[in-house]
């Protein structure tokens, strides 16, 4: 519901300055100017705090680790080097890596990157599709007990996911899926109550006219789902998919429980591991920040493409 509810609000808020201008032209020009400058100063300071860590990550990743110890305050990379990235992708020999401050342990972020992509992609595709199916049944199909069953699904919103992790780990272990990508993906494959709830809101509002015309033409309800409801809800489906992807990509606790070896290690877990392995005295900061950047970059790129959609999707209308 995000877009439909926030969009109508826009004109009214934009309207405020007009009214101001008409009612108090002098005050508008003089008094707010100082306040506005001050407000911008505060805003820019907050933006600096927000963005500085990203820059520092980049600056450190492009420095030589040894040089960082001699010059830790330079705003530009110290003794520019790709060494950090080379260690992260396992391109350096062990001796070379240790000489440059690395742990020398074999790390291969290509593998972790691949694992993260597989997990986030499969989880997103399955979860959104199955949630959409359920949302369709709860919004456009007629069957007895529909609202009661939907109520049961809503109940699951009350179950904190964190409480389910330990028992789910035991279940995944019983299924013999420990240390597999499938084990990491399994609990998230089927649905989240939020996705069902969110999509149901949109499906309910899709006009019934097109659907009825299609049904008269002899289309089945299955066909209505694939040929009408889904295409007409591409926006909200994309929104929930992007949010799911980001959440899945950034998840740490669950994959930490399930994954033990490189075979199933995703980026977040690999990062934690990298940090734990780095020499305690004189950590490989350049390598660590390069790894951090590698883990963060795909989401930053995703964000660059979908910023408007992501930013507009955040609001309460989906829940309330």
């Amino acid at each position: 519901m995000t877009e439909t509810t926030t969009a109508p609000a826009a004109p009214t808020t934009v309207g405020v300055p007009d009214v101001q201008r008409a009612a108090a032209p002098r005050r508008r020009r003089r008094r707010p100017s100082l306040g506005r400058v001050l407000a911008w100063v505060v805003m820019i300071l907050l933006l600096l705090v927000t963005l500085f860590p990203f820059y520092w990550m980049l600056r450190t990743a492009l420095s030589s680790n040894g040089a960082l110890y001699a010059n830790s305050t330079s705003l530009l990379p110290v003794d520019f080097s790709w060494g950090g990235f080379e260690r992260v992708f396992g391109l350096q020999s062990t001796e070379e890596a240790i000489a440059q401050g690395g742990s020398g342990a074999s790390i291969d972020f290509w593998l972790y990157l691949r694992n993260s992509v597989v997990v986030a992609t499969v989880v997103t595709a399955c979860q959104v599709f199955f949630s959409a199916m359920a949302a369709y049944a709860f919004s456009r199909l007629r069957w007895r007990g529909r609202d009661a069953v939907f109520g049961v699904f809503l109940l699951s919103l009350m179950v904190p996911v964190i409480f389910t992790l330990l028992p789910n780990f035991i279940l995944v272990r019983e299924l013999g899926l420990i240390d597999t990508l499938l084990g990491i993906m399994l609990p998230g494959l089927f649905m989240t109550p939020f996705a069902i709830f969110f999509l149901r809101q949109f499906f309910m509002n899709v006009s019934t006219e097109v659907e009825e015309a299609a049904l008269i033409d002899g289309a089945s309800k299955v066909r209505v789902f694939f040929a009408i409801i889904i295409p007409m809800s591409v926006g909200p489906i994309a929104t929930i998919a992007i949010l799911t992807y980001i959440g899945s990509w950034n998840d740490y606790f669950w994959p930490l429980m399930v994954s033990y070896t490189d075979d199933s290690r995703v980026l977040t877990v690999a990062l934690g591991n990298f940090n734990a392995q780095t020499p305690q005295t004189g950590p490989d900061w350049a390598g660590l920040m390069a790894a951090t950047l590698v883990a963060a970059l795909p989401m930053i790129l995703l964000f660059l493409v979908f910023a408007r959609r992501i930013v507009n999707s955040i609001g309460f209308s989906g829940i309330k």
Partner: protein
Amino acid sequence: MSAPTVREGRVGRRDDTRLALLFILPASIGLVVFYFWPLLRGIWLSFTSWDLLSPAEFVGLDNYRAMAADPVFWNAVRVTLLYVVINIGLQTVVALVIAVLMQRLSRSTLLRSLVLAPYLVSNVVAALVFLWILDYQLGIGNQVLEWIGLERIGFFTSEAWAIPTIAVVNVWRHMGYTALLIFAGLQAIPSTTYEAARVDGASEVRTFFGITLPLLRPILGLVLIISVIGSFQVFDTVAVTTNGGPVDASRVLQLYIYDKAFGQFDFGYASALSVAMLLILVVVTFFQYRMTRAGQTDLN
């Protein structure tokens, strides 16, 4: 909200039960197997003693008795509460400031995107970046402290600073997201109320405390409920930066649960701790809901 608004015409009159059951089948599997079953199983396990290898053994309330007498548990509760208070207090104030500034200054997508940027990286990424920025020897944060004539601080290595530091790191990651939630709430306040205040000559500050804040209350209530629940579950940042130390200074509840289960293979006790966490979440949510009256709006 749940009223069936789909008004189906003559064509749609037939009963879709079989198709509907097929369509909710995958979601139902997920619901039963990965939500309800673990809920029941987690509660059951809390009454057992189990190391994963030998069969679980029913021990009644033993785990709960041990928990009541476990100083590390009570310390974990205390530390978690301290974290939540600092984290939520700071985050709400900063997010409110950002949201109000955004509303007054610019509605541009670029600005909102920049504000949201930290939310896109994982907790682990945020933790590592700040581990570096706040490093005692080389961190730029400590260098700045020295420049302005203050003492260096062992942000992650001193007992007093560990929890506040972790709380601030997570404020950094979540403040933009929270600000956008509040920003969305601000958009819902009709501009006519502001106009009325302006005609009466109310100042910015007065308008904020007299109109914005009261009308924002339901949204703020929901934001608080969601962020407090999330805050209680803090784990990633602690696990990556201090791993509970120094001593137990940052051993939050969820980390203690993880230690018990995966460090000592005491799944029964870990489950009892999880139930304690569950109860805390239920109680906190209930009281917050009551106190903030998040379900009601003043906008009518």
